[in-house]
């Protein structure tokens, strides 16, 4: 799950939890608030009543009677005065039932003992609990609406902020890992962020990529230097053997004995040449500015290799549209790529076999060149390693040091082409080169 999704879910769920808790707690809270408020209200009312009694005198209300009672029209509130005989004199507030004109009501009642002319009176001020409840539900509803509104707003703000906050993470992954292509030559620019953790991650990745870059550079340099250093001794050895071969005192039998040496020397030369060639490609020593007709190039390759095809009686079928031009490539490298592939298709073909070269392009899609042969094929387990250096299929009898396909791979990677190989043992091999659409220009015919 994406980090943003996780955070979003967490934020939403946690807020939802708060809402649920609050909804359950709300009646109690509101009940508590109105309860407290009613008590306060009754105390205030008591003060007012006492003030009025003080001013007007108790008799004004009793008017010779021993009790006084007054209530509002709907009996939500009442006040009563009655003589009190027993001793306690503290104020109490309690909920109790009163019967007024045959109606029974639940009241919140404040009782107060009043001293007047050495007589004790009991003052009661009551308020029906039903009125208290009415306020309750109203209050609850408004609180709930306000709460939901606030929470929605805060979720929105949270999401926006989270989105902005974690945006550098995506950028770091994109620029440092996903978009950086082998052999990681371009220098990396730090992603701008004020989050220290992301800065740390970014820095660490840059350091890591630099280390990888350095290691690759060292490897390339080593291959290049080592191969160069080998060229001179090989040169001496070769010229030495050549001189020996031309020595007139040598018999033909003796000359023949030199052949294994010459063979080995030649093998050494080929390996060093191929390694140098690969390291030259990997060191960007080829300019990619040519515009090449792939049809003409393949035709040229087939002409170059025609004698080898004749030897094996191999048919070459070229079904590539002649209107397709490939831009921004190095012609020599592309030639080499096709040459090696067609050469392999000959080398590993059967007698009287066929080599077919086709192309394929859907509009706006990458352009694909497919080279297939009817040869010995590659075992399924070996397909993944054919492009590696110094690997060769065990089936082939002819020598070959596995650098041909490494060169092909290097050239493909250098240009940004994709290359893949499919094969059926004993049936043949198919190599596909996928060239991004940006390289393709269709010649207007």
């Amino acid at each position, binding site marked *: 799950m994406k980090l943003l999704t996780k955070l979003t879910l967490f934020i939403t769920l946690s807020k939802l939890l708060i809402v649920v808790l609050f909804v359950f707690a709300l009646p109690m809270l509101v009940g508590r608030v109105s309860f407290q408020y009613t008590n306060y209200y009754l105390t205030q009312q008591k003060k007012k009543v006492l003030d009025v009694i003080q001013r007007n005198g108790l008799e004004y209300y009793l008017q010779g009677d021993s009790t006084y009672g007054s209530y509002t029209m709907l009996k939500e509130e009442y006040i009563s005065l009655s003589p009190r005989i027993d001793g306690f004199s503290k104020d109490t507030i309690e909920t109790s039932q009163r019967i007024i004109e045959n109606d029974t009501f639940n009241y919140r009642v404040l009782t107060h003992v009043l001293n007047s002319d050495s007589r004790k009176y009991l003052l009661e001020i009551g308020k029906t609990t039903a009125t208290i409840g009415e306020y309750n539900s109203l209050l609850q509803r408004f609180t709930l609406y306000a709460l939901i509104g606030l929470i929605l707003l805060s979720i929105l703000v949270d999401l926006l902020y989270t989105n902005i906050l974690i945006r550098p993470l995506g950028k770091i992954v994109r620029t440092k890992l996903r978009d950086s292509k082998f052999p990681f030559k371009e220098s990396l620019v730090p992603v701008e962020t004020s989050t220290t953790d992301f800065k740390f991650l970014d820095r660490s990745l840059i350091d890591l990529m630099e280390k990888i870059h350095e290691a690759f550079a060292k490897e390339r340099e080593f291959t290049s230097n080592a191969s160069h250093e080998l060229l001179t001794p090989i040169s001496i050895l070769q010229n030495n053997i050549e001189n020996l071969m*031309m020595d007139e005192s040598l018999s033909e039998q003796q000359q*023949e004995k030199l052949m294994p040496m010459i063979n080995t020397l030649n093998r050494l030369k080929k390996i060093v040449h191929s390694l140098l060639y690969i390291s030259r490609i990997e060191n960007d020593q080829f300019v990619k500015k040519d515009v090449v007709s792939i049809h003409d190039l393949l035709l040229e390759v087939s002409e170059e290799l025609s004698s080898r095809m004749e030897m094996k009686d191999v048919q070459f079928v070229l079904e590539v549209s002649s209107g397709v031009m490939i831009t921004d490539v190095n012609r020599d490298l592309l030639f080499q790529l096709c040459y090696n592939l067609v050469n392999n298709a000959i*080398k590993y073909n059967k007698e009287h076999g066929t080599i077919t070269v086709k192309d394929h392009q859907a509009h706006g899609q990458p352009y694909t060149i497919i080279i297939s042969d009817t040869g010995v094929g590659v075992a399924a387990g070996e397909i993944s390693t054919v492009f590696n250096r110094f690997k060769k299929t065990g089936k082939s009898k002819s020598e070959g040091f596995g650098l041909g396909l490494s060169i092909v791979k290097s050239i493909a990677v250098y240009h940004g082409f994709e290359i893949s190989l499919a094969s059926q043992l004993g049936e043949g091999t198919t190599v596909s080169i996928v060239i991004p659409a940006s390289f393709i220009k269709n010649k207007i015919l």
Partner: protein
Amino acid sequence: MKVLIVEDEKALAKEVCKFLEKGFYLCDIAGTATDATDLMEVNQYDFILLDLGLPDKDGLLLLDDTKKLCPDASYIILTARGDLEDRIKGLDLGADDYLAKPFSLLELQSRMQAITRRKSGNNDPVIELGEFNVDLNKRAIKHQSKEVDLSRKEFDLLSYMLLHKNRPLTRFQLSEHIWGNFNDEDYDSNYIDVHIKNIRKKLSAYAPVEWLQTLRGIGYKIKL
């Protein structure tokens, strides 16, 4: 013909020298740029074989200087640096040819002869080969004024063998000459045999070609 070999690798210089002396060239060897300039001040050379990786001076810079000292000499650059850029620079500075190490001595000789031929004009370019005449300039082979149709590669191969007549030539040497600098892993395979077979077939339609010998296990030889 006088040749100066400017090469800091003594063993290599000696092999080249040994080979050229068999072909009646006179050789001097210089291990450094300083030695080379000293020698050039005293002697005139027909050929200067120049290694680019000298200990005291870059070969390309030396080439620029020595062009003034020996303006008539032909320059061939010998180098382990295979860069195309170096090659272009060298040829720009007036070098006549360029050979990448490791090179075949036979290839060196054939390049030197090609330069000589180019510089001296039409100096006896028609060579007898059995009952055939080979015109190296027009790249044609004739049997009693009738031209034999050989492919480009076949003609290259034949003229190369003719140049090194009476010498055993290995398949490697022959394929290296016709596939040359081209980066092909399989140029040493027996593909050369197909070309020889074709040459034999085409020529023997006119006259016997017993001079084109197969050396079992080694390669081929033109024996005249």
